[in-house]
């Protein structure tokens, strides 16, 4: 097991090197100039050139790449061109809202989707099944931002139960955090609910037709126990895989949700940096996101061994 984890960890190194190379050259080959953004609309070409020189953007790309890699190897993600703050400081400021939103979304999605999928499979081809599958189609089809605006309109503007926007940090109390994260988590969770519910249903249907389930029923085991102890556990591997894929998809979903609900997280930091061509932030964040993705995949792979002991061998 340890050797397996070590092998997987070592395999991440070339992945991260390729990501670093790709990110740097893609950004520098993409049109756009932070100096022009800094200078503003009324600046003259000479002023823009002056700023470019000061930022070192007039140096050859290979030289800039060398500096970037050297700093990266020393754990320095760089300094934001605009705010003049270290990228790591900005990431630390934004990490909590994004993590809380991601965890809340997953909790909401899993808590609703798995029971929905299990019930849909149990009551296959009934009205309940069709309602659940109808909801799944809707969850996929309706964009996150639209769900967000609808939730804001109903729960924040009409009913005034929850805030329109903003994030209350955990340090100010869990209730404030939950209130601020409730609508975004539901908006973002809709698509994942749909995805996980469908996979749970499909996987459960396959397992429910197995002989050992029929045997369990024949032995008089309670339906609840058959569904949760026998069927769900054996249907778990594809569900866990989808949750893992969902975590990766969450990164892109978070960008939109954070913008709509004004959550000061990593998603918004990424979009703002791209629009302003704040290269150090974009590079730093993509490296971090890639690292997170690799780690999640690793954790998912390890989790398989708990659900299916055969994988350990």
């Amino acid at each position, binding site marked *: 097991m340890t050797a397996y984890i070590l092998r997987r960890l070592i395999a991440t190194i070339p992945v991260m090197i390729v990501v670093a190379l790709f990110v740097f050259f893609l950004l520098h080959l993409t049109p756009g100039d932070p100096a022009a953004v800094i200078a503003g609309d009324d600046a003259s070409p000479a002023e823009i050139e002056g700023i470019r020189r000061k930022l070192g953007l007039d140096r050859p790309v290979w030289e800039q790449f060398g500096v970037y890699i050297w700093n990266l190897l020393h754990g320095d993600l760089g300094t934001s061109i605009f705010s003049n703050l270290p990228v790591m400081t900005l990431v630390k400021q934004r990490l909590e809202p994004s993590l809380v939103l991601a965890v809340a979304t997953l909790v909401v999605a899993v808590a609703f989707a798995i029971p929905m999928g299990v019930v849909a499979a149990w009551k296959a081809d009934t009205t309940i099944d069709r309602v659940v599958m109808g909801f799944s189609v809707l969850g996929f089809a309706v964009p996150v931002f639209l769900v967000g605006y609808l939730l804001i309109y109903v729960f924040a503007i009409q009913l005034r139960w929850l805030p329109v926007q903003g994030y209350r940090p955990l340090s100010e109390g869990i209730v404030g955090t939950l209130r601020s994260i409730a609508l975004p988590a539901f908006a973002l969770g809709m698509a994942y609910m749909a995805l996980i519910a469908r996979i749970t249903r499909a996987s459960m249907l396959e397992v429910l037709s197995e002989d050992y389930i029929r045997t369990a029923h024949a032995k008089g085991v309670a339906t609840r126990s058959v569904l949760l102890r026998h069927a769900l556990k054996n249907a778990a591997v594809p569900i866990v895989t989808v949750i893992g894929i969902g975590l990766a998809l969450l990164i892109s979903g978070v960008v939109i949700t954070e913008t709509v609900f*004004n959550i000061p997280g990593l998603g918004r930091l990424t979009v703002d940096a791209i629009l302003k061509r704040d290269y150090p932030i974009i590079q730093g964040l993509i490296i971090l996101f890639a690292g997170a993705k690799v780690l999640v995949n690793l954790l998912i792979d390890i989790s398989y061994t708990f659900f299916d002991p055969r994988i350990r061998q």
Partner: protein
Amino acid sequence: MLRTAFRVWLAASAVAFAAAPVVAQQPKVLKVTMHADVRTLDPFWTTQTIAGIHGLMVFDTLFSSDADLKPQPQMVDTWTVSDDRKVYSFTLRDGLTFHDGSKVTTKDVVASMKRWWQRDGAGKQLFNYTESLVAKDDKTFVWTLKEPYGLLIDTLAKTGTSIPFVMREQEAMVDPFQQIKDVVGSGPFVFKRDEWVPGSKTVYEKFKAYVPRKEPASGHAGGKVVKVDRVEFIWLSDPQTAQAALVAGEIDYLENPQPDFLPILESTPGIKLDTHPAMGTMGILQLNHLHPPFNNVKARQAMLYLINNADYLNTIAADKKLQTLCFSFFGCGVEMETDAGSEIYKGPKDIKKAEALFKEAGYNGEPITILHATDHQYINPANLVMIQQLRKAGFLKLDVQAMDWGTVVSRRTKKEPPAQGGWNIFITGTSVLTSSSPITHTSVGMACDKAWFGWPCDAKFEELRKAWAFAPDIEARKKIAVELSKRAYDQVPYISFAQWRNPVAYRSDKISGVLSVPSVPPMWNIEKK
């Protein structure tokens, strides 16, 4: 056990959710959303307007513009001008203190002006006519000009972008192409660095030791009396969410609501929209004077027969109350307003005449490269209108290149021919305030290599601009503005396609005392009910 704990947690959460107040508002905290996020703390380092708004909170100015855009003293107490209009002597008023407790002296003023004029267009102009700027003693400084340049006071009172703020000498000595590290001003608010989250929130607290002028507040001038304890700039990048936050009372003030949402805001009880006569944006259809066909004046003049000003207004600002059909290069509703020379542009559109002029210019159906920013609130629809108008002409071959605004900003600096990464046309905008002076209106300048993107070149126009700057009074400037306008319509540096106002929206049931200004809204004088 776990199940019981979960049930208890669920019940407790439900009770807490129901019992918690909807909006936890702190007393005397003004929550505002500006048009952009404060991302840069040095107002000289970038010309972005948001940096000016931040600067206005923290730093003070020697002069300020009042509600009528007339310059008024702010940090300056008294001043004298020599008979030859070349020597200005200024005395600072009493009680000026930086946020660290140190006194403001003329050393700080002199160093600040020297840093500012290296980064601002109007400042550079002023520097060109400056013989010397020296501190006579701690309270008096003398500004000596080489020639009787008439815009010294106006330039010091300028608002919009690159406002000449006064910093501490130690910050003012920093290379203007590098950002300052400490934000210590002598303005009415103290910047809270520990609470700054770029891209999310910027916080200011009332500077208790600030001594405001005795005069009532007017525009940016007069007494800067702070009536709240704290101001929070909350950055809401999504216009729909910003509008909803104002409606729900989560913010008190929204600087730049999207035009689509104005009817909703107007009909919401407790929300007021406010505009200033000189507030607004002017559209600019920028032509590249370096490459065919627009390196030939005939082709530029031909565009006046094709572009219909009113079409843009209806697309960008559908509300008639916000529209001004303006044919003045220097904006409408301001002192320099003039439509002299605009007869062709104002007249009926004439494709045949346009085609004839393009032919005279040697146009043979070469592709015209248009940089189309598709992600910008008003630039995208303006581009769509222009493309339609040009396609309707039938004889122009267009090469429309869709991109984000960030790419346009970079690409427009390229002087190469369009086929090698250059361009022929891009659309942008400028504030009416900036364009109201031929000196600050950089897009209208025709100083060849030193001109704005598009690089128009006309010595006669530049001579007139200089004469405007040296004119002794407003009447003389107005006369020269007429000549400038005629020359601009003859040379067509760019085509101005619309003027529309962008009102601010605020909760009049929660705040009062909002000052009416055309740009860079001040946060003093506002009282939270």
